[in-house]
């Protein structure tokens, strides 16, 4: 099967999965017992007000019609209206999303970085106390509730040691705005492009402002280390197992017989073979990452999607929650798709 066929097939397969997930979200919010509108008001309003409210949100239509509207809206990137002020949820989602993305990327980097390094060390000292300690560390890090770890981090590094900030995304006033590039000529009425991703680290680079970059990193430290640590356990185990398996293979013995240095063998021979499984695992862990992000963002007041959901819970804004959760579903599907395609591209068996 060629790469192109695989990619097309895979994209086509994603559609039913996304559909299923979105339906699942719909079922949870609309079909389960519990009327979102009543819950919102907590039975504390006039029936007329409730009806008017219901009507404005389109929640009085028959269920199947709501379902169609829901899907149709999503196709147009309409994630519904907030119960709080009827404003489009999509706006809020898209402004909060980059923060979560940035957190996710850095946390994944931390997790994979720590995971592979410790995994290699663990494999090298197979069956020694060092190996056992690292393995236990992996198990323990997974068992710690991420918000608890976050709080401990805040206390230790933020309050006691005062090295790092305990909340927020950057120093007030240091939000990067990206770069404005003037076009040499007018292009459909556009005179300049605004180069900004919403990721503070990248945007501050675009802007050419090292101070903003440093601040952004400082604020990223604790949350991404927290989330990354909790996630690292899986990678420790994966790397360790992969390394142990690869180190037993004939070509490793043959390499040793040629007198190659241990470092070369471990990194260039064994670790390279583990690369693909790690990539796959990164994709699989993305969902876990998102779950952890909700708690992490809440703990560190990180203005991302996770915290958005948290605040919406407080406001009993169920339609907004539905929109956000639907967004999560789409994100997961897309990431899974990207990882699969990347894997197919890199796997020599499929490529060659």
């Amino acid at each position: 099967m060629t790469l192109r066929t695989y990619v097309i097939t895979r994209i086509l397969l994603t559609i039913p999965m996304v559909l299923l997930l979105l339906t699942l979200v719909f079922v949870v919010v609309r079909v389960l017992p519990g009327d979102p509108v009543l819950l919102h008001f907590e039975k504390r309003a006039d029936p007329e007000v409730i009806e008017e409210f219901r009507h404005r949100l389109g929640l009085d239509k028959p269920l199947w019609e709501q379902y169609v509207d829901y899907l149709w809206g999503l196709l147009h990137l309409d994630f519904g209206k907030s119960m709080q002020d009827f404003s489009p949820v999509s706006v809020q989602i898209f402004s909060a999303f980059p923060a979560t993305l940035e957190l996710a990327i850095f946390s994944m980097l931390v997790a994979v970085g720590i995971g592979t390094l410790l995994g290699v060390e663990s494999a090298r000292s197979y069956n020694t106390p060092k190996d056992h300690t690292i393995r236990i560390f992996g198990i323990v890090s997974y068992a710690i509730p991420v918000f608890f770890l976050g709080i401990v981090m805040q206390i230790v590094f933020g309050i006691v040691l005062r090295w790092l900030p305990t909340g927020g995304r950057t120093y007030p006033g240091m939000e990067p705005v990206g770069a404005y590039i003037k076009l040499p000529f007018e292009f459909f009425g556009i005179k300049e492009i605004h180069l900004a991703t919403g990721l503070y680290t990248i945007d501050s680079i675009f802007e050419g402002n090292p101070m903003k970059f440093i601040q952004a990193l400082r604020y990223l430290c604790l949350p991404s280390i927290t989330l990354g640590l909790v996630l690292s356990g899986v990678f420790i185990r994966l790397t360790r197992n992969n390394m142990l398996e690869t180190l037993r293979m004939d070509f490793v013995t043959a390499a040793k017989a040629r007198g190659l240095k241990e470092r070369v063998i471990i990194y260039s021979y064994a670790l390279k073979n583990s690369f693909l499984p790690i990539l796959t695992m990164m994709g699989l862990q993305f969902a876990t990452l998102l779950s952890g992000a909700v708690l992490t963002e809440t703990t560190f007041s990180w203005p991302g999607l996770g915290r958005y959901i948290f605040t919406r819970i407080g406001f009993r804004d169920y339609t907004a929650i539905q929109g956000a959760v639907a967004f999560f579903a789409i994100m997961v599907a897309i990431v899974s798709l990207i990882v699969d395609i990347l894997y197919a591209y890199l796997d020599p068996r499929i490529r060659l």
Partner: protein
Amino acid sequence: MEKEEKPKGIIVGPLIKLASLPKEGWAGWIVLVGIIIVLSMVIITIIGPFISPYDPNAFHTGPLFAPPSSEHLFGTNHLGQDMLSRVLCGGTTMLQVALLSVTICFIIGVPIGLFSSYIGGNLDKVISLVMDSIYAFPGLVLAIAIAVMLGKGAVNMALSIAVIYIPSYFRIVRSQVLTIKEMAYVEAAKAIGARNRTILARYILPNVIPSIVTVATINFADAILTAAGLTFLGWGVEVDIPDWGWDLYYGRQYISKAWWIIFFPGLMIILLALGFTFIGEGLSELLNPRLREGK
């Protein structure tokens, strides 16, 4: 190769197995430690009310926000309640919710897994697709969505947590069944004309049980952590009795002032989750030794 042993009696058998665990090396130790931790936690929860120095619900047992001292080993909270007593007595809700959700998971997930994979065909494909979708979804987010819709309460929380983990049981049962289904002795049984029900119960199920147990223990740990997460986010079970989860939630506001309010209950939750995780990880190592030493 799967072992099909019958334990020698309900008490003696497991005790013998427990004692032989350390021999199995690192994995055996981990399981043993895990079991000890879990048992200690359960015992503490049970005898907690009898050994706590103060009434965990009583206000003003000491100064408000008192740091840990000889009088209040774990300090006091914003209501003057003694934290040590609250910690000793606070495990019941969490354990109950976790137990309930694991049970629900088990009761629903395992049979569906068994039947779906055994019968196969389109039904199996559809159910697998549904299960895979749920499995792929960020667990906590889904749990939040469900819990929020169902409303607060222990049973609702247990239900929301259960939904996320049903796919785990489903998958493990399914993968085992698919392997066993192809084995010779199942074919032989069919040839004799055994009914499907019998085949499932007597041939397939016993071999699936070890894996289910492993999944269940890890599930337990996850359930505890998810429950803690939900509580932390404000959707905890509202009870009058002391509850670690609730201390977590209230303690959050007072972190800079009185870190001990959130710290010790949190520690207990970690220990409980850790205990189960140890058991689960150790068991999975024992049952599927991935790498043997030497050739």
